[in-house]
């Protein structure tokens, strides 16, 4: 049932460039798709495994830079760039995850935040590689099998195919025994150990996969923008991913996907009032958190549990 709805939604999204010729709306569509993927990746490590990682911002930035540099500096193509973005991020995540995941959850948050800030510094100050604040402009749109994804509408298909593939992969992962084990680790780590499961490989893999997907998403998004500079590491992105996960319901795959699409579109729909739109957006978020502190999915779930209790009485 859920899968059928997801399939119909995916096909509906594929049709967006056929319904409108506005580059603006299609651009919002691309953001929605890519942000949803990045949020779903954050959901894997935060929602499922219970580890709040601010490193996502760093992975997003590294992914963007690696993809851009692959094409511009190292003469590769876009597809290899995205693949490299995923691989480099997975390796970086393993390297920083191995020591930091041994610390407690609070230390993990601080260390991932520090990592994200460090990446920002590198992007700004390693001028030889990243061109510093100037950034790398004029990123060429990719082509495949002789077809050039030159316009925004054409590039939309790339973003769409990428998102569907990544969300499909993350869904398969989250709904498997591996996903269930991650939830178990989040809920009661000592019990997991008492049941013969070593938590570390699970946490490390979740972190690395989350990093790889976020990095690849960053790569795809960079080529939509056509330029990468240190602003690509603006905290705005981290905040967006986090809001999507929290409003959607941390630990709920479909909740986060739905929130990803809705919350990417929401600030744009509020453009009828240019002066107040961010204020209205903020108010909506605050009210949502008051009414549904565990997100939309958590709220639905609590109602379901309440019904169960009622039945058992």
């Amino acid at each position: 049932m859920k899968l059928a709805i997801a399939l119909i939604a995916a096909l509906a999204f594929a049709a967006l460039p056929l319904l409108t010729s506005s580059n603006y709306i299609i651009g919002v569509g691309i953001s929605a798709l890519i942000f949803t993927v990045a949020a779903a990746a954050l959901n894997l490590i935060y929602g499922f495994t219970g580890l709040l990682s601010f490193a996502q911002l760093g992975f997003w930035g590294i992914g963007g830079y690696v993809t851009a540099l692959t094409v511009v500096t190292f003469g590769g193509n876009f597809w290899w760039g995205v693949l490299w973005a995923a691989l480099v991020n997975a390796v970086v995540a393993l390297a920083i995850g191995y020591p930091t995941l041994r610390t407690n959850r609070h230390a993990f948050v601080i260390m991932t935040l520090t990592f994200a800030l460090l990446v920002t510094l590198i992007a700004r100050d390693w001028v030889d590689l990243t061109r510093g604040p100037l950034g790398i402009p004029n990123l060429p749109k990719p082509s495949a099998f002789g077809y050039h994804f030159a316009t925004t509408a054409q590039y939309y298909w790339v973003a769409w195919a990428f998102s569907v593939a990544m969300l499909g992969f993350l869904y398969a992962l989250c709904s498997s025994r591996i996903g269930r084990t991650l939830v178990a680790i989040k809920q009661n780590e000592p019990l997991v150990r008492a049941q013969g499961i070593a938590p570390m490989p699970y946490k490390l893999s979740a972190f690395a996969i989350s990093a790889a997907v976020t990095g690849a998403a960053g790569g795809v998004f960079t080529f939509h923008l056509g330029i990468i500079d240190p602003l690509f590491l603006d905290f705005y992105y981290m905040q967006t991913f986090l809001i999507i996960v929290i409003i959607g319901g941390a630990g709920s795959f479909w909740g986060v996907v739905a929130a990803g699409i809705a919350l990417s579109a929401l600030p744009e729909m509020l453009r009828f009032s240019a002066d107040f739109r961010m204020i209205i957006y903020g108010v909506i978020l605050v009210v949502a958190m008051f009414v549904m502190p565990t997100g939309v999915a958590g709220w639905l779930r609590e109602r379901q549990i309440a019904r169960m209790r009622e039945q058992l009485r």
Partner: protein
Amino acid sequence: MSAILQVTELRKSYAGVHALDGVSFAVEAGSVTGLIGPNGSGKSTAIDCISGFQKRDSGEVVLAGNDITGLPAHQIARAGLMRTFQTVRIYERLSLRDNLAIAAQQFDPATWIDEFLRTRRYRQAVDKAEVRARELVELIGLKRYWEIETGILSYGQKKLVALAAALMPHPKIVVLDEPVAGVNPTRIREIEVALAALNRAGETFLIVEHNVEFITNLCHRVIVLDQGKKLAEGTAAEIHTDPRVLEAYLGMTPEMAEAEMRGAA
């Protein structure tokens, strides 16, 4: 009968205080063994060291002929020692069914590749675990909560879920840390009956508990710890009349204990 668990000269100290000062004991296969003692006598430290949740200073633990001394907790579990915790630990936001499925997961041969391809090996493993889970749920009387999040259960019911989870992978021995502490008397009786039935079916238990009546009814052998040392060992009846035990553990003379027992009966 042979010893399934052999603990030799276990030592552990915290900042100079000897929590365990050379404790040795054995648990026979197929038995129910009680580990009792006053607060701070080292019971919990002992089972934490045995199950790998704390590092021991010295001593040896052998499970079914395998030296498990100093292994990390998850490897000790894989070797066949399952435990429960004093403060009940279950996955409160997962269904009873998932709680039990996870408990068995590490013990079946199916890998994530098997799962992804839905191989026969995966399906068999899942089916087998499901059969075992349903059996246990029947036994602990929580059948109607099968699909329900365990967080809504009562404290005593949660303890039963933890017990069932520990039994899922057919362990060689189950270590129960205060299985009836904080549980209401009717439920205690139910747990007692369930444990006795499981023991008749061949399960081996090591039980840490304060409830003397519960221990007396259930245990073949009782080990008494006091100040990190083994004070006495014997059948429940022997322990009840051992003056050292009465002095240290119950803080009373044999005559007082006699009266107490008559009162309880």
